[in-house]
């Protein structure tokens, strides 16, 4: 077996912690989103095997189904707000869908949650291709979200209208007791 340098050995536990931390972070984002839908009166399900569509949301009775992909990006504090980065595979972003897929960006910020960004896949693609949101890097498109006094932005796109934009899922009356 090849001998590892003391530095390499010392870094291993930290790498494992980092990988585990990202799994915890992703799960926290999923549960945060599922909680929001449950409070609104919608049923939720998570695939046993994650193949990209992270959460299914169902309106019981009506049988309406939505596919949700949750992306969780930790906020890095800035002078007037925060910055968060995430990436999406381009082939996933350009794929037309039926039923529509929604992206929900969850943004943990020093122990609390910033408003989630909620938008349809086709809307995000339009912002990317016509309003300079995100930059292509190989097979992925990287999005950097900035929050400052002027609002919420990604490139030249204003994301402010998409902050906590849950209008597609109005609170159902039967969930009023919640």
């Amino acid at each position: 077996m090849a001998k590892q340098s003391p530095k390499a050995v010392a870094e291993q536990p930290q790498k494992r912690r980092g990988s585990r931390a990202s799994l915890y972070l992703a799960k926290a984002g999923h549960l945060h989103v599922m909680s929001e839908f449950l409070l609104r009166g919608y049923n939720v399900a998570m695939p046993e095997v994650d193949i990209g569509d992270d959460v299914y949301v169902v309106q019981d009775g009506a049988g309406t189904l939505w596919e949700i992909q949750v992306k969780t990006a930790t906020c890095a504090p800035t002078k007037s707000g925060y910055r968060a980065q995430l990436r999406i595979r381009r082939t996933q972003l350009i794929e037309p869908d039926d039923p529509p897929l929604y992206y929900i960006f969850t943004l943990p910020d020093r122990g609390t949650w910033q408003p989630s960004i909620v938008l349809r896949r086709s809307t995000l693609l339009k912002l990317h291709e016509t309003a300079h949101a995100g930059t292509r890097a190989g097979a992925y498109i990287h999005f950097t979200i900035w929050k400052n006094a002027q609002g919420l932005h990604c490139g030249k796109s204003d994301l402010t209208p998409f902050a906590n934009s849950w209008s597609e899922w109005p609170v159902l009356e039967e969930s009023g007791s919640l």
Partner: protein
Amino acid sequence: MHQITIHIGHKADGFVFRLDPRSEAWIKTLTGRLQSLPSVSIGFDERSSIENISNEIFEQVAEMLTGIDGEKLAAMGIHFVDARTERTVHTI
């Protein structure tokens, strides 16, 4: 001349078509109006491949998405791109 691109998505029983946003914006500039439909879905009784979609179906889909009739579309040139591979699978 701007190339018009239509992306193809896959469903269990068929396919979903949608104009690439840049093409959509260009058509709006050209015609001064919105396209007829944001997306078009087609379904088959049995699972099918893109190769089984006829030229007539591709033309009808392009007309529904752009609101432009077939002869004008042929002059423009339409590229249908499989979103999963980003390869052009059909042209008009």
